[in-house]
């Protein structure tokens, strides 16, 4: 009833041309102001400079569980896996030199305190305890960001970095040795506002 009254009044006051023009104006406004907002949202978890591109994807426990359930992981392994914080990192070497990815040299920290990362060895211990089959260990291992790797010019590397769950955002300082023999100038990048998806609502 109310809707038809609105339609009646609206259509009596405005011609079809007016309505089309109004629609077009709204579309232009959306294109002008809407897309930068969307783009900004996409850029939020991206850092890049002349040498590197980094994109962080924050995974919820639900997403992590769904992924490993899809790979038919046993329930206890999934329950163990989802207790951690998962940050998927996509890295690209944009420089003309080799850059070294050495997770032990990357510092996760908050208020001057280091947040210890869960390394591959931590996971091996977990899987040993529950006698997890080699196939699942292998798959899990391949989904982790490599512990040590050289990244050639143009090469992309991605994977999960796992940490103890953090209730508040934290910082990450990344160090990249440069050159085949690591003799080039060390690159340092400091990033704030890294977080665990389940613990922090962003």
């Amino acid at each position: 009833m109310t809707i038809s009254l609105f339609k009646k009044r609206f259509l009596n006051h405005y011609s079809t041309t007016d309505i089309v023009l109004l629609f077009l104006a709204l579309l232009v406004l959306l294109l002008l102001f809407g897309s930068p907002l969307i783009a900004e949202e996409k850029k939020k978890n991206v850092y890049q400079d002349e040498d590197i591109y980094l994109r962080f994807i924050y995974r919820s426990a639900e997403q992590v569980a769904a992924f490993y359930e899809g790979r038919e992981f046993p329930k206890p392994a999934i329950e163990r896996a989802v207790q951690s914080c998962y940050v998927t990192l996509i890295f690209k070497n944009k420089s003309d030199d080799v850059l070294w990815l050495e997770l032990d040299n990357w510092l996760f920290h908050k208020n001057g305190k280091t947040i210890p990362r869960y390394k591959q060895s931590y996971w091996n211990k977990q899987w040993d305890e529950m006698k997890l089959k080699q196939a699942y260990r292998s798959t899990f291992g391949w989904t982790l960001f490599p512990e040590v790797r050289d990244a050639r010019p143009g090469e992309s590397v991605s994977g999960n970095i796992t940490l103890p769950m953090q209730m508040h955002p934290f910082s990450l300082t990344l160090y990249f040795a440069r050159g085949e023999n690591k003799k080039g100038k060390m690159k340092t990048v400091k990033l704030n506002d890294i977080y665990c998806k389940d613990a922090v609502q962003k």
Partner: protein
Amino acid sequence: MKNIILSLLILLFSANTFVFAETLPKGIIRIDARDAPALKLNDMDGNSFDLSKLKGHWVFVHFWASWCGPCRKEMPTIQATLREYKDSRLKFAIINTAETEDAVFSFLGSIASDIVPLMDSDGLVTERWQPRGLPSTFLVDPKGQLRYQALGGRTWNKGAYKKFLNQFK
């Protein structure tokens, strides 16, 4: 004078050879030749495969998993390449890393149904080969030595990659 011209021609020729020899498609790297790790697996139909029996051929050794995004993107280009080189001297070993037959079957059925992959059911063969990640491709020379590695997924059936593979058929 003759000698100078001859020397210049030789220099020019060697420079060109050097340039051609060093030009590789983007993302393909040369490896210092070393023996390829053992590769003995069964394919999804139960047929056995042994890399050591393929001496005399170049072999395209590819590691993949259905959960990896770039693998999904690359697989149709591998299927097209397999079709093209079916009767050539270039041989293929397409290895699935640590997945079940059901997962592999449902993935390949929709993306690249011609491929009958080798099943590295526990993932240990993949680990022995130490790929830089998944997907990963190696080219093994006729002596059984690793010679090239591809960084990530490549469009093997097109442009520079197709030309690159053509030299091995």
